[in-house]
């Protein structure tokens, strides 16, 4: 069971969190094109290695966290609060 170092709650089991995934920048809805918008919707980096992604600590502080994780090993390098940037 992977551990995520929650900036508010400390290291916690991954089952306490909901995986959200990579969140790319949201295009301006007024001017966006279908190509651009659907890239935002569907195309996410899928590297075998370090990735930046979002997790939600649903069974803890209920904060959204920006997490750096290696998808090859599941090693978590950092986790900070998405809104405040608070790190542990």
């Amino acid at each position, binding site marked *: 069971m992977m551990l995520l170092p929650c900036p508010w709650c400390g290291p916690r089991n991954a089952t306490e969190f909901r995986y959200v995934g990579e969140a790319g920048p949201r*295009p301006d809805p007024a001017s*966006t094109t279908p190509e651009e918008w659907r890239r935002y919707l569907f195309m996410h980096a899928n590297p075998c290695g370090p990735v930046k992604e979002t997790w939600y600590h649903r069974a803890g502080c209920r904060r959204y966290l920006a997490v750096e994780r290696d998808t090859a090993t599941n090693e978590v390098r950092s986790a900070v609060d998405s*809104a405040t940037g608070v790190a542990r």
Partner: protein
Amino acid sequence: MSLLPTTRRGADAPVSMRLGPQPGEVIDRRRTIPFTWNGEDHRAFPGDTIASALAAAGVRVFSRSYKYHRPRGLLTADYLDPGAFFQVGDEPNVRGAHRLVEPGMEVSSQNTWPSLKYDVKAVNQLAGRFLATGFYYKTFIKPEPLWPLYEKVLRRFVHAGAITPDPGEAFYDHRHAHPDVLVAGGGPAGMAAALAAARAGASVMLVEENHQLGGHLRWGDAADLAALGELRAQVAAETGIEVLTDSVVTGRYDDNWVGIAQRNLPGVAERLIKARAGTLVVAPGLIERPYVFAGNDLPGVMLSTAVRRLVNLYAVRPGQRAVVMSANPEGDLAVADLERAGVEVAAVLDARERRGVVRAHGRGGLRAVETNEGRRIEADLLVTATGWTAPTSLLNQSGDRPVYEPTAARFRPDPARMPDNVLAAGEIVGDATVEAIVEHADAVGREAARRAGRGGPAVTIPSLAPRPHPELFTAGTGGFVDLCEDVSAKDITTAVAEGYDSVELVKRYTTVTMGPTQGKLETVNAVALVAAATGKSIAETGTTTWRPVYAPVTLGALAGRPHEPVRHSPMQPWHDRHGATPLVAGQWIRPEHYGDPAAEVRAVRTGVGIIDVTPIGKLDLRGPDVPKLLNLLYVNKWSKLGLGRVRYGVMCAEDGVVMDDGVTGRLGEDHYLMSTTSSGAATVWEWVENWLQTAHPDWQVHVTPVTTAYASINIAGPRSRELLGRLTDVDLSADAFGYMNVRQGSVAGVDDCVLWRIGFTGELSYEIHVPASYGLHVWEQLMARGADLGVTPFGVEAQRILRLEKGHFIVAQDTDGLTQGYTAGIDGLIKLDKDDFVGLPELRWQRERDEHAHLVGVRPLDGSIVPPEASQILDSSGGIAGRITSSRMSPTLGRSIGLAQIDRELAAVGTRVTVRLPDGRDITVEITDAVHVDPEGERQRV
């Protein structure tokens, strides 16, 4: 041959093989316990395993083999023994050389018919040369229709114990543990590492698969037993160590999450311990490796460790006349044990001198041994000591890739690849005297404590080299590599010759290592044979992946005690008392109806009904930026929602797909109450938080989920005002409290209730949210005070009918995973002129494209037919043009009505289309407006 008795009659009479007391024996001779073996009465001493008790009674044949039904005896005399899988009562596949005898146990051999001695399926031995590896892939191909029959026959030959449909209850459990140091293996190294770690201040869990600590010291000489006694005493005295015997580490997972199956807990069939270990010390010792030669599966062919266990732990003489092939000091010690046990040692073949066995002869049991010097020696026991396998599973699961060392003839851990929080100790690393092993493990234990955060200086771990050992895998005369799976050496070479020439392909093609021992006895021999057949080295060939679980675990232990949460409202006891039929809706249990949903509908349409709607999701929103939030998440406009007003909204996801709907009321200047669908409550809450935290952290909105803080009741029907009016201080008059308004006040004496005037049912109705602990009280008051009005409780089914009559869709029933806003028919709600809202671009393009399906009302021409939901709508060419999403008999209209998603071309009101019913009939339905009852909405506005 097969149908002959497996031992000679006459000589078959049970001979006691029990020896006099042995210094290290684990049996208690003061009393005996009865059990049965294939229906015969037997007795064991406490401490006996099933196999040791049977072996003591002279039993030599324990089972029949997987494919060829060859008779098999003991090989390892421990947990792994492939010859000793038994049915015990209704428990299949019991490890008979590990499981202790309990009083009254009914033990039988598995999968033999009609009996262990006369197993008819042993005819497979005759056909053996045709049943070679790959047999199934090459035959039964044609004629095709016969394959199912062949398959039925194959299934008859399944080699295993049986389960029963009603095995009775057993209690299983889970436990969480957080040891600083977890030591896997309770031999001398494990005990020493545990002691050192505990003395360094670490909390230690010491896990041993066998029934006692001690590992190989248990069957050692006087010095070993003395060392064992000393270590055990120290462990017992060390309060920082928790010892778990008859327990096994089943796997090491991410971040040192470790599974342990604990089997020695009274009253618990098996317990799964989930441990988050600071440092994991892997100290499993070594597993003795069988030798592959013709006849190596005959009863009477055993490993040296099996002999030493039988003699020293269980005081069982393993045979009468023995030949020993030994390549190491442990094998030599077995010779001494045999002599002490009164076994005639006919020959010792020193494999270091290149002497060895090439064939074993016998039928149903060993009779003679043929050596590589051409001797033929009569014997009923052949002991091999040809090398060791390092059980590296836990290290592999930690990321290690053990390296093969030819001079030691075994794989060893590669410390460079191991994560910081895993260490190896003892013989898995190298060989030495007990003192040196203990010294090494002591350093490992101190380092483990340090790495777990217990301080102290870095520890230098002394090196522990493996001693040289000849590479001995096979005599080259055939024989079995995998006794669990009946895979022969020839099967391996055949597979390689056919092109299955990597170890993983050989494994899959021959099933070698796929049986219950999972390769612990077989893998290295198989790898050696593959290497020999391919001309590669063992190191190049590599091993198959060592996967969890290290030892089998019951499903019961993995499942633990079931904890499936159930939610119900405070009024559920009332519903239960009043005959409600329960409906499982996600985690919630709710009343589906109270006996007659149609009557409940009529009561709402003509009088007044009340329904428990507590599961509706409720979010309390506060802050000056709530309107911004609502504007962003809903497709409609929210900035002008006045105080005391309620508005309906629909949420779409960024792909424009409808995700939720509900009403939100403005309770105060900066205070709102949002409702969601019952099933969407958790999702919407996270959705709201997601937008606030990741996209608009500057917005001032505070969200509190209050779904279960309130009990929610909808009071619906033309007389709802009259009923509620009797209980509340809120002015319910049409002028004071109009449609789509919200008020706060007391109901039935309960303060701080929220009252919404909304109309999901299409009737005059009030949805009241009362502090949950008063929910039952308010409900009972409504029932009592409305008795003269004929107030009727109604359930989810009546509500579904009422809303269908009114044409309200249900998200995820009338919509699906691709239903975008305009398909759902909320055109009037979607405000494309807003600057932004979630899903805006997709909805804009959906409308521009104008190709989408529509959600419409439908009415069968024959109003007595209710087409089942999911009935398909056909176009003129018979293709699918849509489906009925909701369908009911309307008690109000006296005819069937429905909702349907249908292609744009057929969606115009008045169009007649064909619907295929599940029974194959086609009916005609007419497209109507979605609203079937009171399309003007007058009833809800009175």
